[in-house]
């Protein structure tokens, strides 16, 4: 087995054990509270639903970031990862991919019932799920950098939130606009996701090399 697939498997197992339940549950909880807070006016839910779903998804992604590298730095497994015969960038990318599979995908799938409950027409559901999956990739790509530069900071939750907020802005803008159809905003969202996924691991790896020194 190549080092990368081992790392991917380990991260996936860790993420499953920590439970995608927390961020996905947060996402679902927010979605349940929404109509309770806004009332049942169909037109209002239809209009306000998608933006609020994206806010909930962004906050759920934020939850996963704080311990992403911190735990590895504290117990020394980061140093072990660097001993692997593989570039740090790819290792970081594998970690990000595992997080996406463990949390991003379930959350995107949970977006389907949420969107239906918020009165999104049924034919728009595939675009909602695909959009959330891409959005989670963009969030995680940017989040890797924020998690890496704050890995040695204790109780970094608020700091990470402040750091990633500017990076979450474009995917939220395009994602909330893309809801329900594969149009131009969806393509722009795809661009955001690809950009974050390709640049994020490089900058995060540079930061982690410093953290491990």
């Amino acid at each position, binding site marked *: 087995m190549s080092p990368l697939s081992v790392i991917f498997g380990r991260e996936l197992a860790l993420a499953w054990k920590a439970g995608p339940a927390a961020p996905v549950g947060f996402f679902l909880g927010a979605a349940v509270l929404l109509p309770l807070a806004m009332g049942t006016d169909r037109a209002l839910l239809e209009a306000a639903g998608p933006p609020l779903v994206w806010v909930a998804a962004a906050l759920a992604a934020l939850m996963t970031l704080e311990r992403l590298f911190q735990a590895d730095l504290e117990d020394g497994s980061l140093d072990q990862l660097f001993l692997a015969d593989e570039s740090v960038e790819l290792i970081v990318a594998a970690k990000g991919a595992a997080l996406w599979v463990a949390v991003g995908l379930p959350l995107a799938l949970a977006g389907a019932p949420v969107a239906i409950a918020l009165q999104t027409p049924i034919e728009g559901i595939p675009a909602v799920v695909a959009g959330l999956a891409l959005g989670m990739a963009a969030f995680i790509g940017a989040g890797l950098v924020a998690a890496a530069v704050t890995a040695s*900071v204790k109780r970094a939750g608020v700091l990470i939130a402040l750091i990633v907020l500017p990076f979450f802005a474009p995917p939220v803008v395009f994602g909330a*606009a893309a809801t329900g159809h594969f149009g131009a905003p969806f393509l722009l969202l795809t661009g955001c996701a690809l950009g974050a996924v390709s640049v994020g691991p490089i900058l995060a790896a540079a930061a982690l090399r410093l953290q491990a020194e």
Partner: protein
Amino acid sequence: MISSFANPQKFMAISAWLMPAFAALAVVLFAIGVSLGLWFSPADYQQGESVRIMYVHVPAAWWSMAIYAMLALASFVFLVWRHTLADVAARAAAPIGAAYAGLCLVTGSLWGRPTWGTWWEWDARLTSMLVLFLTFLGYIALRAALDDEDKASRLGAILALAGAINLPVVHFSVEWWSTLHQPSSIIREGGSSIHPSMMAPLFTMAGAYAAAFAVLLLAGMRAEIYRRRATAAARKRARGT
């Protein structure tokens, strides 16, 4: 050639007389710019006297963006060539940039009240200025949160570069977003058709802001260099005895 400027010793010698020179320039330009802006320029035929906020607001917006560009460039130079002075410059520039961006937001809000009838309009430029402000704050907060100074410098530089990639994307996404959400165009301030009588105070104020930035930057850099020397000297003493 650049490397010769990277010598802290030389920097301290040059900045010792450059700083008062910029301070004098800033005072003169502010005096001219403020009097031109407040008394010797016409009120706008639509916005009335409130157009004078522009002379405080627009230069702050211009320079806060330029300061971020400088911060990112200095961070790049520091990461690649490890010039300590570049890191000192980036560190000193961040609070000034945050202050300029904050000033731009506050004056934009004050200006929005009489012109748009609201304290806060989700106008594309105000929104991307808000994101720029948060980017500055994130950079400052990260550096403040890291105890190890060397790590703070380098991790801060990485974050600054990530922000430099992100900010243009934010700018365009927000521009796209506001045209989507506000089909009716809001009142455009001046634009390129700005009258020469308003141009003079505006550019004088822009010069004054630049000079003020130079003074504050040099003062911040000198203070940081003195601080590092003091720390190094204290460490040396502790080792010696």
